């Protein structure tokens, strides 16, 4: 199975023979670790998820953040003790593990989740119907029964409101402490799936337990974390995935959100300026562009200008680093928009065939000029080959004799410069009948 946890990456091989002293030190560490583990197990086996167990999980997870069962015990501690009240749909017992995965993570309709913003902001597109909740109760009571005299009922309501506010303060404090707990672990193990997923579970709890405006505040900080982690490792796909998830939630109705496509697009700009070779950033850009153009309400002219700008930018980058695959993949993305708009998100749906041909041939010409400066970079020949084939396909014709001659020449260069992939070059030769 594809799980990289626990495997050795990039650690230099050393002698496995330990001195007596080293061996004894290992044995001491093992004894300490196992004692901690035994304590947690003995208690959780009895269904004990008290603060004692909680503190033991802190110690154990600091020693071993990959220990997923301990992260689960910690969740159960929070649900059964630290949070203001057990979340519906969750249970602390081991035997509950057959519950569906969404039961503990989706905001439960029985939770006080969506009241206050519903009372103050008319008609948010919240997926759940507003319910009389904690902090919203007063506002709703005063608008629906403005002249109601003081009754036991309203006194009870006031007490409930106060209790709800206290509960929210408690939950927010627990969540913030928990989020802070994982930070040093994440900095030490930035590719540990379990830490990232625990953090996402906490954030889901914020949606389930806090009013949207408060929950939003918690989620917003996560963007800073994602940026921090990507600052340390620009390609960390956990951090990129986390960022996408956080953005999607911040955009969602559950958090009273609006589109973040512009700032996220600007973020890819920033990341690309730092490191042109960061394909993760180029990829992210490719996913944002269709939405960006739609949300800008871009007309045909604006779309053309946008594409011009993207092409110019990537061409300049390729001029500096033509051996960088990341750049060529992004160039391909832009070209696919021209040649296969039905299969790939079309940035310029209004383009006529003539427009597409004009853009494609300009790219081919530009790349041909590159050969004059770099005659030994195989990616250039690969692009020329691919795009020339597209050109003939766009015009629904076979390659002309001069194009064929070019294809043969470029294939020869590919074979010479990149013999590792000779099997592929042979297939291309067969596919386009270039060996006749």
């Amino acid at each position, binding site marked *: *199975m594809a*799980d990289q*946890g*626990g*495997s*050795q*990456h*990039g650690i*230099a*091989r*050393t*002698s*496995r023979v330990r001195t007596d002293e080293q*061996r004894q030190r*290992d*044995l001491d*560490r*093992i004894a300490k*670790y196992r004692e901690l583990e035994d304590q947690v197990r003995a208690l959780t086996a009895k269904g004990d998820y008290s603060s004692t167990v909680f503190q033991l999980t802190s110690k154990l997870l600091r*020693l*071993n953040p*990959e*220990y*997923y*069962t301990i992260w*689960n015990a910690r969740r159960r501690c929070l649900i059964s003790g630290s949070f203001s009240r057990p979340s519906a749909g969750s249970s602390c017992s*081991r*035997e*509950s*593990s*057959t*519950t*569906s*995965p*969404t*039961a503990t*993570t989706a905001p439960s309709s029985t939770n006080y989740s969506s009241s206050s913003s519903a009372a103050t902001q008319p008609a948010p597109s919240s997926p759940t119907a507003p319910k009389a909740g904690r902090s919203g109760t007063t506002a709703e009571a005063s608008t629906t029964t403005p002249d109601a005299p003081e009754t036991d009922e309203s006194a009870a309501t006031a007490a409930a409101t106060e209790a709800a506010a206290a509960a929210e303060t408690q939950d927010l404090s627990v969540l913030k402490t928990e989020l802070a707990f994982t930070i040093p672990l994440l900095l030490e193990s930035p590719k540990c799936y379990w830490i990232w*997923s625990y953090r996402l*579970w906490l954030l889901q709890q914020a949606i389930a337990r806090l009013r949207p405006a408060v929950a939003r505040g918690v989620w917003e900080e996560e963007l800073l974390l994602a940026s921090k982690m990507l600052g340390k490792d620009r*390609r960390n*796909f956990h951090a*990129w*995935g986390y960022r*996408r998830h956080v953005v999607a939630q911040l955009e969602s109705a559950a958090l009273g959100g609006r589109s973040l496509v512009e700032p996220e697009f600007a973020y890819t700009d920033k990341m690309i300026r730092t490191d042109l070779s960061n*394909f*993760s950033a180029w*990829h*992210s850009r*490719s*996913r944002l562009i269709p939405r960006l153009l739609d949300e800008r309400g871009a007309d045909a002219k604006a779309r053309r200008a946008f594409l011009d700008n993207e092409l110019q930018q990537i061409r300049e980058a390729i001029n500096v680093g033509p051996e960088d*695959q990341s750049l060529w993949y992004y160039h*391909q*993305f832009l070209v*696919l928009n021209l040649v296969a708009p039905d299969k790939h998100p079309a940035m310029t749906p209004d383009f006529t065939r003539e427009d597409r041909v004009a853009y494609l041939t300009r790219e081919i010409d530009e790349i041909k000029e590159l050969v004059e400066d770099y005659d030994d970079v195989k990616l250039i020949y690969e692009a020329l080959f691919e795009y020339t084939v597209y050109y003939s396909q766009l015009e629904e014709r076979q390659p002309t004799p001069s194009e064929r001659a070019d294809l043969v020449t470029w294939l020869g260069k590919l074979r010479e410069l990149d*013999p590792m*992939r*000779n*099997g*592929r070059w042979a*297939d291309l030769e067969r596919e386009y009948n270039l060996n006749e």
Partner: protein
Amino acid sequence: MSQTLNQPREEPQLAAPAHVKYIQSLDSRKDEYDYWLTEHLRLNGLYWGLTALHLLGQPDALPRAETIDFVLSCQHENGGFGAAPGHDAHMLSTVSAVQILATVDAFDELETRGKGKAQVGQYIASLQNRETGTFAGDEWGEEDTRFLYGAFNALSLLGLLNLVDVEKAVNHIAACANFDGGYGVSPGAESHSGQIFTCVAALTIAGRQDLVDKERLGRWLSERQIAGGGLNGRPEKKEDVCYSWWVLSSLEMIGKTHWIDKDQLAAFILRCQDPERGGIADRPGDMVDVWHTVFGLAGLSLLQYPGLQPVDEVYCMPKSTTRRVLG
């Protein structure tokens, strides 16, 4: 004390006996701290070690009865398996359990002494997100195409794929496809060789390879081979033996293995061996582990390296096993 300095000039050979000894020694390292720190991977580790031994042609190098006992001792009432006794049930360890039981031909023991196939199938099916079709790793809800593949892998071995909504899962994979032909962890995520393996293998199990853009994907995968012969997992990253499995098996599934230089890849994997003490590392001179060992050997098997048993490119199990179980 890096080994690279001592390496002979000529291409190294497969150190098969050393690898067998290395794998056999893994459960006797209880005086090493790492042994305890990796208990959350014990069942996965057993699957990796057992598969490696089968590929090395030593299927009896681990005791069968103890293997089955251990696997069954990890099972929960709900049918799922934890990584070791006392560890919570999870998709990853459940899939490993099913793969191990399939490999040692012990589904009948699961029936008589365990909770039975049907219960395992129920556990896995309960983790499908019925709205999107993807799968969670456990009750806490982390979703990833790894878990979707794991579910398809185990359920098809158990003959219980009918318990889940295959079509929805297939649509979810299709939504994970990128312009470069690859697949990511979830819709919108960057293409990654590990996720490509899980998505293409799941589509293969579902009989839906027609959804794969084989030309474009094959091209992306073939570009993973870099100078030195090793494969990387994404553009502009370092090579690593584990991608000898994920990239190569994906190429094999779409019929494009000949798009890379097999000899150079085999030589790279062999350079990552610890020839004396056994095991394979991520890169030459690094620490070995059982995970890189099995994926290195599985890669060599796909490359038809002499002396290794054939591996199934979809299941990462001995082909003899998948032939017996799947018919």
